[in-house]
């Protein structure tokens, strides 16, 4: 059977139409206890990342510290195609980098294929112990049988961003401390939005799907329950979040702008909405899209409806395809160590996930002039600690969010009734998990 499947894999490689293949691990995929290379043996390692990880200066530094190691950094632009390629290479059994980055939103699909990644708690260096990381960040990369497939890099703690000038014009408080009660719970948030929209005729938030995602992410279980069964219809939390968001849409609170679309970008410039759920990395997006002409109009506050939450962040994994898993795990541990996370934060603003980094003066002293000089380092460190535990995400979770709930909410914003939208979401989710 193995040879048959191998030839199928080869054939698929040629076809280019039918891409990907069976669970066939090209070579010794079952090796559990890899042998380390001799101390001075020359080792070539590859590192694959997408978008910005801030590793440009760190790689030469690591090579200086380890003269026998040569690192090739493969950098990709967009996350979506990167993860599709990752799936294909994982299936084909070859082609993955020794250290392969994985995004949090795609993590569930790869936890499902945990056998194809090394258990970092076994092969990693001793100092990369669990207590280095925020508990929920570390635990999220554990498979059901307790393997740790990835070291956490950055995180995306959630806070709330808002337009000071628009708040002021609507007679709302605009000081970052004074607005906190508005953002205490989702009910208070949507109520404030209803009042705001009624008074001004303008939108309160950018898109229903953005808020819904944040709300669903706060639940203990997501679209898939711990038995890996679809729970969209049975999970009351999801239904409640749906009702709250679609009610808000009906009250005119949504600017109906699909996130990251050209229209959404223009929306920032035009001041199309007054508030925005803000993972730490969103500050950069706002700055870029709203532009210098809106400097000091946007503000951020250390409050988020329903406590806290996380949106985004990545992991570094070592696939079993790697020929030098031990060295690869050492590199991954080093790159995610507190000192290096701080450097990556200073380079590209990726928010650290290591406990020690979160109390580092370099992080805590970080301010942002665009947001009225807010102490964003301290603010997001505080928000990061509010996250309790990771949500259980089963296989297909990310796909349901992208292809079931977000389009259904978009359809509601385009005029579909909330009930029809709900049915559309349930049907699409069923189809995805079929």
């Amino acid at each position, binding site marked *: 059977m193995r040879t048959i499947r191998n030839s199928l894999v080869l054939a698929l490689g040629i076809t280019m139409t039918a891409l*990907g293949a069976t669970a066939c691990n090209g070579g010794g995929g079952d090796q559990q206890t890899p042998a380390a290379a001799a101390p001075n043996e020359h080792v070539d390692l590859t590192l694959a990342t997408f978008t910005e990880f801030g590793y440009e200066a760190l790689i030469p530094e690591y090579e200086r510290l380890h003269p026998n190691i040569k690192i090739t950094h493969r950098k990709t632009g967009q996350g979506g195609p990167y993860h599709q390629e990752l799936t294909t290479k994982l299936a084909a059994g070859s082609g993955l980098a020794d250290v392969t980055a994985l995004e949090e939103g795609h993590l569930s699909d790869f936890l499902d*294929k945990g056998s194809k990644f090394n258990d970092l708690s076994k092969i990693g260096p001793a100092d990369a112990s669990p207590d280095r990381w925020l508990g929920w960040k570390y635990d999220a990369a554990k498979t059901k049988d307790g393997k740790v497939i990835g070291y956490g890099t950055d995180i995306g703690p959630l806070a709330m961003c808002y337009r000071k000038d628009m708040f002021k014009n609507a007679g709302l408080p605009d000081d970052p401390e004074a607005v906190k009660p508005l953002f205490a719970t989702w009910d208070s948030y949507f109520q404030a939005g209803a009042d705001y929209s009624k008074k001004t005729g303008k939108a309160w938030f950018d898109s229903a799907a953005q808020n819904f995602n944040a709300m669903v992410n706060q639940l203990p279980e997501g679209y898939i329950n711990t038995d890996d069964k679809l729970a969209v219809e049975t999970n009351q939390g999801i239904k409640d979040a749906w009702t709250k968001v679609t009610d808000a849409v009906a009250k005119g609170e949504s600017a109906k702008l699909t996130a990251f679309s*050209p229209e959404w970008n223009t929306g920032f410039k035009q001041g199309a909405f007054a508030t925005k759920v803000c993972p730490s990395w969103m500050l950069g997006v706002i700055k870029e899209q709203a532009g210098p002409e809106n400097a000091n109009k946007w503000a951020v506050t250390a409050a988020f409806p329903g406590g806290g939450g996380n949106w985004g962040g990545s992991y570094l994994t070592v696939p079993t395809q790697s020929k030098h898993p031990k060295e690869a795990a050492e590199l991954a541990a080093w790159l995610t160590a507190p000192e290096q996370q701080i450097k990556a934060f200073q380079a590209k603003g990726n928010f650290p996930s290591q406990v020690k980094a979160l109390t580092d003066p370099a992080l805590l002293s970080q301010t942002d002039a665009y947001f009225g000089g807010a102490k964003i380092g301290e603010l997001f460190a505080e928000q990061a600690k509010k996250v309790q535990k990771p949500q259980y995400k089963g296989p297909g979770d990310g796909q349901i969010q992208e*292809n079931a709930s977000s*389009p259904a909410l978009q359809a509601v914003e385009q005029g579909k009734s909330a009930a029809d939208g709900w049915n559309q979401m349930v049907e699409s989710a069923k189809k995805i998990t079929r």
Partner: protein
Amino acid sequence: MTVIDKVAPEGSKAGERVSPRPTFRHRLSRWDVKVSPYLYVAPFFIVFGIVGLFPLLYTAYVSLFKWKAGGDDPDFIGLDNYKDLFADSQFWNALVNTISIFLLSSVPQLIIAVMLAALLGARLRGATGWRVGILLPYAASLVSIGIIFANLFGSKYGLINGVLQTLGLDPIDWQANRFASHVAIAIMVNWRWTGYNALIVLAAMQAIPKELHEAALIDGAGLWRRFFNVTLPLLKPTLIFVTITSTIGGLQIFTEPKLFDAMPGSNNGGSTNQFQTVTLYLYQMAFENSSLGYASAIAWVLFLVIVLIALVNFFLTGRLARTPAVKKK
């Protein structure tokens, strides 16, 4: 049987010496004539066999399995994928979208291409400049075109809605409205391909001998008469070629609807799949859903649909440009 048969000699004519065995050189040159042409065309067919025919057949094979990328052993399920597909409303929706976008793009595109070619064939100052000009959209990057058009057709801040509102008209939600989204995508396709097709038609038009037009002119045929009775019939083979290539391209349409979707990277084709084409659905099934078997079944059904529509077009184009029988009084 007949007289002629009997006249034919049986082989040995007096005085003519037939060599008993052809020389090696002789045989070599005969083989050369017989075999070489096949060798010369063989590379194409070998390459086609590897990258064209084999994937086609292999896709048919894969379509008989429940085959998850990266999953366990694929299960053989026979024609179940096809059964599911024919009961899948999303597939039919995608097929209707594809055909709708195809008709909205190909029909106006070819008509305009022929008219443009006729105009470009006329005496123009700087003819080459004009001819190169209409090819420019084709040379532009498809991705940047997609992004620019998605901006033009934005529902809130799009340029086209801005113009409509300035004129006192209602803005159109190009994303949400199914027909409007098809029109927008078709405009994107036409903008890119019309000039390309026009140049092919122009080349064929210029190959029509002047004498035919002169003769028709002497017979008293006007401009339109000459166009319909001389130019069009002689363009027939080219029109068939252009129609079939645009059928194939039009039914496989992928990039334009993908980039038109406001949600970046989405393969949904809008919030309710209102502009999801068959290829987008295929892509979604194969790469987002990892259902390789099902995606292969879609690929095969799409292939058959393309063949079918190409054949229909072949006959339609043939009828359209048929030389009209000379009416006898």
